[in-house]
C-alpha cells in the first residue's frame, strides 16, 4: 500500500469533502517522490503548507508544519511545484528547502510590506532577488512586456533566441497581483465571492462556482437543485464564449480573420444572451455561496438556447474555415510528452496532450454526472490540437447547455449558509481548465483561502512548448494556450 492510501485510511483535520492529513516532513517528501500522484495545488497558511494531490482513485490533501520558516521542497521531483513555492515565499515567507528555484515570483519589490499574508507583515527591508536568472551566453534576448501592446493582460516574457528559434522562454508574472487572498479575509463568503469572481476575468462564473462550492462544503449546505442546474448552464455558456474568444485570438494572430469574425459574432451573441438572462454580459456575481444571486429571466432561457443553437448550426462551416488554419498550426508549440505527463495539467491544453483531465467527468460534481460530458481528447499536443479541443468542446457545451435549460428544476435558487467554523474544497472545470478553491471559515468568516487557477500548471507547459519554436510563431504558441495572468497573480 502506498503512502497516499495509508494516509487516506487514517483520520485527519475535518475538511469537506476530504479530510486534510497532517504529515511529517519525511512523509511530505515521500509523497513528492511517489509515483502515480499528480500535484494539483500547493499553498500556505500561517503555520503550515498544504498540498493537494490526485491519483487515479481520489484526491489527497496533506499539510506539513513550517519549522523555522522552512518546509521541504517538492520541486526537485515536481516541475509544477516551482511557481507555487516561489509564490509561497513571497506571500508567507515560508522557504522551500532544496527548491530548484528560489527567486521571487509575485513580489517585485513594489509593496511597502514583505510577506503580506502573515499576521503582522514587516516593512520591507530590501528588494527581492531580481526575477530573471541565467546568463544569456551567445543567445539573443527578446523582451516582451510587461505592457506588451495589443489588448492583452500584463505579463513579461523573455525569449532567448538562437538563429531565429526560441531556445528558452522565461516568464515573469506577478505584475497583476492585487492581494486578493488578503482582501477576502475577514469577510463572509457572500461578500468575498465578489473577489472570487474578479480573480480572473476569463472565468468569473467558474471561479465563482469553485469558491461557492468550497464555502458550501465548509458549511455543509448544498445549494438547491435549480441553482445547480443553472450554474452548469452558465458555466457552459461561459466556456463556449471563452473558447470562441480564444479561437478568435489565435486566428487573429495567425492571420485568419474570417475565422476570428465568425467566433466574435457568436461570442457577442452569447454575451448578449447572458445579459438578457442575468443582466450581465460576463455573468459576474450571478453565482453566490449557497446558490445564485438572481434567478434567470424568462426570456434569458430562450436567448441562451438560441445563441447555443446558432453556434451549433455554424460549427460545420467554422470547422471548414479552420482547415487551412489547422494546417498552419500543425507542429507549432508542441508540448514535450514527458512534460505533459509530469505536470498532468488538465484543461483544454492538457486534453490536447492526450490527458484525460476534466473535472466535470469526475465524481461529486452535480449535475454533470447526468450530462455525459464528452471525453474530448487530442494526442498531438500542438496548437492545432488545442484548437481542435476548443472546437469540439464548444459543440459539447452547447449540447449540455440546451439539455440543462430544457429540464430546469423548479424551486429555490439559494440556501442560507450557517455561520460556522470549518474547511472545504470546491472545484469547477473552467474554460481554461480546472479551478480549485480551498478555504477555512472561522465563525462564518474567511480565515484563509486559496484559489488555484489552471494557469499555474499551464504556464510551465507553455514554456516547454515554446522551446524550439520559430520566434515568429511565439504569438501563436502563446495564444494557443490562453492563460489568465490575473488568475495566477492572485
Amino acid at each position, binding site marked *: 500500500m502506498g503512502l497516499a492510501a495509508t494516509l487516506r485510511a487514517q483520520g485527519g483535520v475535518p475538511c469537506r469533502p476530504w479530510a486534510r492529513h497532517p504529515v511529517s516532513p519525511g512523509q511530505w517528501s515521500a509523497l513528492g517522490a511517489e509515483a502515480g500522484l499528480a500535484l494539483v495545488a500547493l499553498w500556505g497558511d500561517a503555520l503550515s503548507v498544504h498540498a493537494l494531490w490526485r491519483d487515479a482513485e481520489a484526491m489527497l490533501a496533506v499539510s506539513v508544519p513550517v519549522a523555522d520558516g522552512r518546509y521541504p521542497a517538492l520541486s526537485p521531483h515536481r516541475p509544477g511545484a516551482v511557481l507555487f513555492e516561489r509564490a509561497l515565499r513571497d506571500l508567507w515567507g515560508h522557504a522551500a528547502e532544496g527548491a530548484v528555484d528560489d527567486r521571487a515570483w509575485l513580489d517585485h519589490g513594489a*509593496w511597502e510590506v514583505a510577506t503580506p499574508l502573515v499576521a503582522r507583515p514587516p516593512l520591507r527591508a530590501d528588494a527581492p532577488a531580481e526575477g530573471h536568472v541565467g546568463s544569456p551566453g551567445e543567445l539573443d534576448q527578446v523582451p516582451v512586456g510587461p505592457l506588451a501592446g495589443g489588448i492583452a493582460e500584463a505579463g513579461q516574457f523573455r525569449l532567448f533566441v538562437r538563429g531565429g528559434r526560441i531556445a528558452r522562454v522565461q516568464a515573469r508574472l506577478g505584475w497583476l497581483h492585487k492581494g486578493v487572498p488578503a482582501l477576502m479575509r475577514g469577510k463572509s463568503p457572500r461578500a468575498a465571492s465578489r*473577489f472570487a469572481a474578479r480573480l480572473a476575468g476569463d472565468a468569473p462564473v467558474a471561479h465563482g462556482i469553485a469558491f461557492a462550492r468550497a464555502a458550501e462544503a465548509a458549511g455543509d449546505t448544498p445549494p438547491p437543485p435549480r441553482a445547480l442546474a443553472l450554474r452548469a448552464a452558465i458555466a457552459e455558456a461561459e466556456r463556449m464564449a471563452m473558447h470562441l474568444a480564444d479561437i478568435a485570438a489565435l486566428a487573429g494572430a495567425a492571420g485568419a480573420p474570417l475565422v476570428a469574425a465568425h467566433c466574435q459574432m457568436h461570442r457577442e451573441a452569447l*454575451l448578449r444572451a447572458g445579459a438578457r438572462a442575468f443582466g450581465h454580459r460576463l455573468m459576474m456575481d450571478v453565482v453566490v455561496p449557497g446558490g445564485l444571486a438572481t434567478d434567470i429571466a424568462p426570456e434569458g432561457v430562450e436567448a441562451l438556447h438560441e445563441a447555443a443553437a446558432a453556434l451549433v448550426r455554424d460549427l460545420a462551416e467554422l470547422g471548414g474555415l479552420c482547415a487551412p488554419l489547422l494546417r498552419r498550426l500543425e507542429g507549432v508549440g508542441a508540448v514535450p510528452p514527458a512534460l505533459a505527463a509530469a505536470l498532468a495539467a488538465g484543461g483544454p491544453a492538457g486534453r490536447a496532450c492526450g490527458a484525460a483531465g476534466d473535472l466535470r467527468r469526475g465524481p461529486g460534481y452535480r449535475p454533470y454526472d447526468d450530462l455525459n460530458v464528452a471525453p474530448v481528447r487530442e494526442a498531438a499536443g500542438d496548437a492545432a490540437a488545442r484548437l481542435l479541443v476548443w472546437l469540439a468542446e464548444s459543440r459539447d457545451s452547447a449540447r449540455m447547455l440546451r439539455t440543462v435549460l430544457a429540464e430546469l428544476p423548479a424551486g429555490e435558487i439559494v440556501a442560507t449558509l450557517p455561520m460556522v467554523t470549518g474547511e472545504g474544497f470546491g472545484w469547477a472545470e473552467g474554460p481554461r481548465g480546472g479551478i480549485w478553491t480551498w478555504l477555512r471559515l472561522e465563525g462564518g468568516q474567511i480565515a484563509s483561502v486559496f484559489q488555484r487557477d489552471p494557469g499555474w500548471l499551464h504556464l510551465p507547459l507553455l514554456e516547454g512548448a515554446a522551446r524550439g519554436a520559430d520566434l515568429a510563431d511565439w504569438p501563436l504558441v502563446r495564444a494557443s494556450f490562453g492563460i489568465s495572468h490575473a488568475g495566477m497573480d492572485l
Partner: protein
Amino acid sequence: MTDDHAPSPLRRVWRNLRSRPAAVPMALVDTAAARDLAARLEAAGIRRLGRGLSLHALDPGSCGGCELELRMLDSVVYDLARFGLRFVDSPRQAEVLLVTGPVTRALQAALLAAWEAAPDPKFVIAIGDCAIDGGVFKGSYAVAGGVDSTLPVDFVVRGCPPPPEEVLEGLLLLLDGGI
C-alpha cells in the same frame, strides 16, 4: 474536422451579398454613462481631435474582464473602422490610452512610461470601476489606486466591465468634440 456541410466559396459570397452587415447598428444612446461622459468632456474643454483616433489599451492591473470586452469592441461586431477608430500596438502611435483595472504597485512605473511614450495631445480614458478608484481592490497593499493615482485622467467609463457599446459611446463623444 469535417467540412461536409460547409458552403462553397461562391455560395458564401452570394450569401454575404444578400445578408445585412454583421456589425451592430450604432446610434448615440442617451444613457447615464454617456451623459456623464459628455459633462466631463465639457469640463475638460476637449473640442475636436480630427476625423480619427488611434487607441492603445493598457492593463496596469485588471482582472482581464475589461480586456475581453475591449477585444469585442475591436471585433467585426463593432467595426471601429467605420468611425475612424483603430487600435494600435504601441503607445507611441496612440492618441487615446484606454486604461483598465486598478493600478498595481508593480505596474505603476510601466504605466507611467507608456503614458510618457504617447505623443501630445493625448487623452486617458479610465475603463471600468477599478480604473476609476481601485474598485473592489481599493486599499490592498499591492494596489496604488485608480488610474488617477498615476496619470491625469480625462474621463471615465463606468461598469464592471463596461459593455463595448458604452466605451464606444465615450469614444464617439470624444471624436465629436463633446456632444
